[in-house]
């Protein structure tokens, strides 16, 4: 007797649990959240990772200076492109989050693109060193920010472990 009760309870419970969403009209989120990684994020992370690896490779003697410069500008361009895409998407969507990934995209054709790229990368690097670039989303925050305005993570926590772009 107890068995029949137990079995009925379990079966009914399982079926009810599973069918609940359909019965009640609860919907799961099946779109990408705005603060999730996007393809752009992934590419940007890859480019920044590549930059960091390239620097290490150069310093440990695996790369010539010439090759390193070429590689660096190539990767910097990729990173910047990704940041630009993000910025454009952020501006277009304007979902309340501030302009993402703090790049000031050179909207007008800069006179010397390489130079501005270098400057940009230098700022990003400096931002990393000063703990202003968020290791999570890459957003370059205003000095003395405590929290990243891109994703909300505590920057102080990041700073104490000398944030570098994560590659996990």
């Amino acid at each position, binding site marked *: 007797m107890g068995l029949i009760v137990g079995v009925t309870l379990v079966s009914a419970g399982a079926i009810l649990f599973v069918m609940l969403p359909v019965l009640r009209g609860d919907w799961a989120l099946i779109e990408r959240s705005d603060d999730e*990684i996007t393809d752009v994020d992934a590419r940007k992370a890859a480019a920044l990772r590549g930059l960091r690896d390239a620097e290490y490779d150069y310093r440990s003697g695996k790369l010539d200076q010439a090759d390193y410069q070429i590689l660096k500008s190539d990767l910097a361009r990729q990173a910047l492109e990704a940041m630009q895409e993000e910025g454009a998407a952020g501006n277009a969507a304007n979902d309340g989050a501030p302009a993402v990934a703090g790049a000031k995209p050179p909207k007008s054709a800069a006179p010397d693109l390489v130079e501005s790229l270098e400057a940009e990368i230098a700022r990003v690097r400096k931002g990393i060193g000063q703990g202003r670039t968020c290791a999570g989303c890459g957003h370059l925050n205003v000095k003395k920010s405590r929290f990243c305005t891109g994703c909300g993570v505590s920057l102080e926590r990041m700073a104490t472990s000398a944030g570098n772009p994560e590659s996990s």
Partner: protein
Amino acid sequence: MILLGELALWIALPIGIWGAVAGFVGGRKGRGDLVLSAEYSVYAVFFLLILTSAGIITAFLTDQFQYWYVANYSNRELPTFYKVSGLWAGQRGSLVLWALLLSLFSSAAVFTNRTKNREFVPYMVGVLLTVSSFFLVVLLFADVNPFERLPFAPADGRGLNPQLQNYWMTIHPPTLYLGFTAFTVPFAFAMSALLSGKLDARWIVITRRWILLSWFFLANGIIFGMRWAYEMLGWGGFWFWDPVENASLLPWLTATAFLHSIQIQENRGMLKVWNMGLVTLTFLLTIFATFLTRSGLIESVHTFAENTTIAFIFLAFMGIMAGISVLLIAWRYPLMKSENQIQSFLSRESAFLFNNLILLGATFTILWGVLFPLITEGITGQAMTVGPPFFERVNLPIGLALLALMGIGPVIAWRKASRRNLIKNFTTPVAVGAVVVAGLYLRGVHHGMALVTFGLSAFVMTVIIVEFVKGTKARASIEGEGHLLAFFHLVSRNRRRWGGYIVHVGVVMVFTAFAGAAFDREVVQTLDPGETISIESPFGHEYTLTYQGLSSPRGQNMVRQAVALMTVEKDGRPFGSLTAEKRLYRMWEQSPLTIVGIRQTLMEDLYLILENVNDLGGAFENEAQAQRATFEVQVNVMVEWIWYGGFIVTLGSIIGLWPSRGSPTTTASRSQTGGKRPALAARS
């Protein structure tokens, strides 16, 4: 409880099928409610399989011998330990374990993605539940129901095969199964990416940890198997190229290739189709592994009893999954064009590609060897087989090539390495390798292949150590940190790379141990108490073992032991003692079990086997004249390097698996969800 467990199996199947359908339809039609229902189905199936497993274990613990499965793998006297692990002692229960672990990982995949990667979830859940449903169908309809009952209950069961009565039984199969089932998740993500057309950089980034997790369990499971064989089989060997052993190696090889090739896709947007193929192949090989073990298609000492129903069902499943995957890949081919090209032959991309090709070559070779009897019988009517000589012979150059690549990979830069830099960076490691080879040769090691292996191992170790040193220095100078802190940050900031290098160190150690096996020695002698047996090790040590006698301890009901005691001297100095046994388990009296004695040191193991007792019956009665016995003593070289190497592989994997804060895939704030399931707009 037991009946509940049985019925849980029946309830799980319809839920699994419903969830699979709901996942696919929900994803296709954008029906969030169906998708949620599908996700709940995953949890429900997991819960039900827990009930099923609990039911089976309860049946064992309460000696319910009316169940065929319990009667076959247990008896009243069996220690509780083995009654619990009876769940996976045989074919039927092990299928339940597989289904259970698969549902565990499915639930984990759903849970960890409840607020992110949502666009991949519907189809992922669909695929996961499809595979789960397959296993449920097998359990319920292929004549392998673990709850099958006998007409009436026997008084006692047959007990567990003594060869399975050791603690490895509780560790080795579950670990392997964890590895096999975990890989279903990356496969499900890949299929989801194909179905949804979201074939950009994301699915790789998302699944990387799952791949590493599966690889980690597989590697450990394989090493546990080797340890089991070494300790329990009593032959001094740890790998026999048995078809079932090989079957577990195959997905590990392709998963290793995959771990490397995804880096190329992540960094350079290349090899997209290749990676899709690899993830599918690895998944199919996990199913193939269990298929081979169960179908009895290839003769093996490991296989369960032959069962043609299962063989056909598994074959059909593999065929269907392979077919669908190929179709999906072909359909989405236009979306998977490479974004870049290989710029130079001298590049890390190129090295990784070679790594992949070689690993796949090894996979194909082993698969060929395993299936050779079937192939030859099919074509010529006469079955031919190949054994360890074939596998060793073909895999030796492959192993050496892989070893070399492990030393080349870290040194060669991405995209384009300059020849001059390469030469500069290889000078020291090559020199060290050469010195090692020369030194060993002068010390009397003339075995060609072993010398090459040792030289390459030294080469690779030097490369890796230099990498750590250079990396630390570079970081110290860039970030202005002290060297110790720099080292710590170096590894923790790039766990994947440096964890990977640590894994390589472990692998090098294991390969070195394999080479050491070429120098093993053995001696066989029949002794009376008081007599000695001597053996000289390849390192020049002289071991002398004095046979003290044979004794049979009293008291144990289920097991009778005849224990031989030897006192050992190494180079004339006392070196402890060793025991070796013959054990007789009640109800398995025809097959006494050989228990070896092993004395392990870093460079060599002293391995004692009680091969035969002339009068075993008398020995069990402690008769003084029944002590004459034949012993085999082995010196096995560098076997500990395998276990230590395995430990280091584990360490490196854990470092690679460790979640890092603030990585793009683990964005911290989820303000809109607060950690709970986002139940958004109700349907109007």
